[in-house]
């Protein structure tokens, strides 16, 4: 039942905030903040309750479930289930939920109630995506989170917001519909084979498909997640959406929505279609590496701070995709760590850029030189998260990228590993350029603005702490992920014998020592 509460609390809080917002903007903000915090606490409770169980790698995987009949005619169930992967991403969701409420505290002055309605409902949708194990419910939540996101960008965004919002919506909607076809085909094929109409994830696993069909269906899922991720040729919506969204929108887009794409790859694409995914892996990995380099280079070329941070997301999520398709223990651990660390460091960068824009009313790097003198605390925070983004050892991103590279190397993809490693180098360039141009140098524009206020400090400190924790002692994360990892790999072990695909997957290592 606690899983249901995780979704219901933000839904109700959103409606309450909307009504409250008509009387008092402050009430709406507090309601949202409390709701996100309550969810966070519930997440912590779940974690402490199941942490050890997840570490012990049970075979069935789900530690907490809610399962009700929803639409019996179609065999649709309202089925939520929790395992290590979803738990970790939920924690990230709630943390960033709190942060985004804090980040929009002063930025949003109009339509406050409605803003928080949308914010809370996005959170509810994302929680639904991470918890749903009925494919219909998953698609339902997948589509549902788009609408409030669309409103967030279209109503409170910057200059070019309507273009960005419509582009975002159309990209994700089209890819989502392709996934719907794939889901339905799988559903009918499964019915054809077994005579049972079901959208259950556990039941659909291992549905026997001809290689050709499996490839097509896999692509249906893959495209939906690749657009969200975003993978290289499908990334064009991202810079626009990130740039035009309000700060909270950018945080949630970069920190959470992109993660739903990676989550979908992990949860659905590979387990449901292991053979097809193996066939397709080389293409996906090459595109991932292209994304890494391409994102980093474009980030280096940007002058708009938000656009810069947006393109770094393309680069970082390239690592995640690479890790997912390398599909061994190191790479998967690395991908998960990359997801979480990217969520925090990029979320924080967007927050800082948002604060800068709030104060200086510009995001142009050229107009922002020499800020260190006037706002040292904020500049320090920016430096910290930029270092995180470029993969400084001791911070979470480093662990993620390092493990992905290690896993890719382990999969005998040395060429890809080398190119991807160049991406890490490129990230140093854009991160340093960002710091140098915006904060160092002479304060030629005579900026004199307020430094971080307590509210912002309160929002940033947990992120700093978490990022250091992830970088120094990531073991709890890996422990929690352990059971899911074993489970995911079991799904794909079965067909190894008759594989004719490239050799990456046939070298699945057994659970080895932890790095």
């Amino acid at each position, binding site marked *: 039942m606690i899983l249901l509460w995780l979704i219901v609390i933000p839904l109700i809080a959103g409606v309450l905030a909307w009504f409250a917002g008509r009387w008092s903007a402050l009430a709406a903000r507090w309601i949202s903040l409390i709701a996100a915090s309550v969810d966070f606490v519930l997440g912590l409770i779940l974690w402490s309750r199941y942490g050890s169980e997840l570490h012990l790698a049970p075979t069935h995987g789900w530690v907490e479930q809610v399962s009700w009949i*929803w639409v019996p005619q179609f065999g649709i169930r309202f089925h939520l289930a929790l395992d290590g992967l979803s738990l970790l991403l939920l924690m990230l969701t709630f943390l960033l939920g709190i942060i985004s409420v804090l980040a929009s505290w002063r930025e949003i*002055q109009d339509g406050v109630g409605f803003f928080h309605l949308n914010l809370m409902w996005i959170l509810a949708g994302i929680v639904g995506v991470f918890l749903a194990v009925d494919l219909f419910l998953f698609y339902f939540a997948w589509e549902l989170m788009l609408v409030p996101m669309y409103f967030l960008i279209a109503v409170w965004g910057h200059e070019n917001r*309507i273009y960005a919002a419509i582009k975002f919506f159309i990209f994700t*909607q089209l890819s989502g519909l392709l996934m719907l076809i794939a889901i339905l085909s799988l559903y009918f094929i499964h019915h054809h084979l077994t005579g049972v109409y079901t959208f259950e994830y556990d039941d659909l696993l291992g549905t026997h498909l001809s290689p050709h069909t499996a490839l097509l269906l896999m692509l249906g899922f893959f495209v939906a997640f690749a657009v969200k991720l975003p993978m290289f040729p499908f990334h064009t919506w991202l810079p626009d959406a990130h740039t035009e969204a309000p700060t909270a929108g950018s945080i949630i887009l970069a920190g959470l929505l992109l993660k739903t794409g990676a989550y979908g790859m992990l949860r659905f694409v590979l387990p449901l279609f292991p053979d097809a995914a193996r066939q397709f892996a080389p293409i996906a990995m090459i595109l991932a590496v292209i994304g890494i380099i391409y994102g980093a280079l474009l980030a280096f070329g940007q002058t708009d701070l938000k656009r810069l941070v947006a393109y770094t997301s393309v680069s970082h999520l390239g690592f995640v995709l690479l890790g997912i398709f390398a599909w061994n223990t190191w790479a998967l651990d690395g991908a998960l760590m990359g997801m979480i660390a990217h969520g925090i460091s990029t979320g924080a960068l967007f927050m800082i850029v948002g604060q800068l824009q709030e104060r200086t009313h510009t995001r142009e790097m050229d107009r922002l030189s020499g800020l260190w003198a006037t706002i040292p605390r904020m500049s320090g925070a920016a430096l910290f998260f930029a270092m995180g983004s470029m993969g400084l050892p001791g911070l979470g991103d480093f662990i993620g990228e390092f493990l992905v590279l290690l896993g890719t190397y382990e999969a005998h993809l040395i060429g890809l590993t080398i190119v991807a490693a160049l991406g890490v180098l490129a990230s140093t360039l854009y991160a340093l350029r960002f710091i140098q141009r915006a904060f160092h140098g002479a304060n030629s524009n005579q900026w004199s603005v307020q430094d971080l206020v307590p509210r912002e400090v309160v929002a940033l400190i947990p992120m700093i702490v978490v990022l250091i924790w992830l970088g120094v002692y990531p073991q709890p994360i890996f422990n929690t992920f352990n059971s899911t990892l074993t489970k995911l790999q079991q799904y794909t072990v079965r067909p190894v014998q008759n594989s004719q695909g490239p050799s990456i997957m046939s070298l699945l290592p057994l659970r080895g020592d932890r790095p």
Partner: protein
Amino acid sequence: MNVTDLFTLLPLLILGGAAIVVMIVVAIHRSHILTLTLTLIGLALAFASLWWIAPEAPRQVTSLLVIDRYAIFYTGLVIAATFAVALLCYGYFERHPGNPEELYILLLLAALGSAVLVASSHFISFFLGLEILSVSLYAMNAYIRAWSLPLEAGIKYLILAASSAAFLLFGMALVYAELGTMDFAKIRELVTASPDLNRAVLLAGTALIITGFGFKLALVPFHLWTPDIYEGAPAPVTAFVATVSKGAMFALLLRYFYWSGTHHFGAVFLVFTIIAIASMIAGNILAMLQTNVKRILAYSSIAHMGYVLVAFQAGGQLAVQAVTFYLVAYFITIIGAFGVITMISDGDRDADSIEDYRGLFWRRPALAAVFTAMLLSLAGIPVTAGFVGKFYVISAGASSAIWLLVFVLIVTSVFGLYYYLRILVALYSGLAHEEAHAASGAAMVSSSSLAPALSISGGVVLAVLTILLVWVGVYPATLLNIIHSTVGLL
């Protein structure tokens, strides 16, 4: 024809009787509220009688009409939609000069025609129902005589509907000439019994019948009347044209082509495939070019009828249920959308420019929220009935593996998103920091700003429709059960 037969026709008799009673009452004492009340009572009685006659179903009443559960379900749908439209009409025509009372007579007659259509199993009743419906619609379209657009709409509809009816008649005549029967079920017997019939004449007849259907359903290439009639007709009347007349016609399309077995002809299947694809593409792309909300909805309705055709093409029980479910969702959504337009329109003109909706959310949050829900339902976004409808249609298509149609549906429905989002953008624009800009823009574009008095009846209708929309969208099992147990038996 005996007493039981008459008894099973009770809903039709009540509708017809109500029209006459309302007419006489209008002759004796003109009162808008009285007329409305009588109309609603008539509709409610007709609706209640459906439960009464349900045990008698299925029953063939003469060779013209068949009262089966399918007919009962669709009659109920028609009556319920008419009920909602009547309530919307009240607030709308209360604001207009001129006599509103006769509209309700026409409304009842149009509902009667639709009820005849959904129950007909014979060309004669088909044509009778069609004409009762069409003739009422001519007058309803042109009801506001003081404005030029409704008049234009009425005349256009008159000419085009009459000529399409002529095509339809000719088609029926050809089929009759070839087979010697006008009964749907007998057509099937003859077609299956003697496959060496002169197919050319039969196909020509079927093609002409498709023309007749295509016109009423506004399918490409018979869609040219749609935007003008949608734009010109008074908003509640447009809601009626868009839902009841199309829904009843689609119910009949299903019955005719499935019962007569002509849907199995390769050529007929091909023609419907082409029509469906053309409707989806043309409807969605042309809608993107519009700036008038009523015209956008007109083109989008063309596309939506294309979507329903996809389910129709799938064939079988799943198709019948998918079509029915989609139509129910579509009824709720379209009446809701035009209900909002009705509510915002005032006595001078209909609120059909996008500019009229700019910033509506910040002025009238409830109304804008309802409109948002309706638009999202049209776009097929979750939590709305339209989502489940679209899901059902796609799954019907996927189960029959008509991939081409399904892919066209998906790609074009994404085009569709664009224009729904444009209206949404307008609804939510004009937040404080751009208020001044928006205000000056609105002043330039729209000739006069609207100042409608909101009506209670319309508000109630919208509230009920929104609840239904979300209910069906979140928990469709109830509606699915009803559809399974009624329409499943076609």
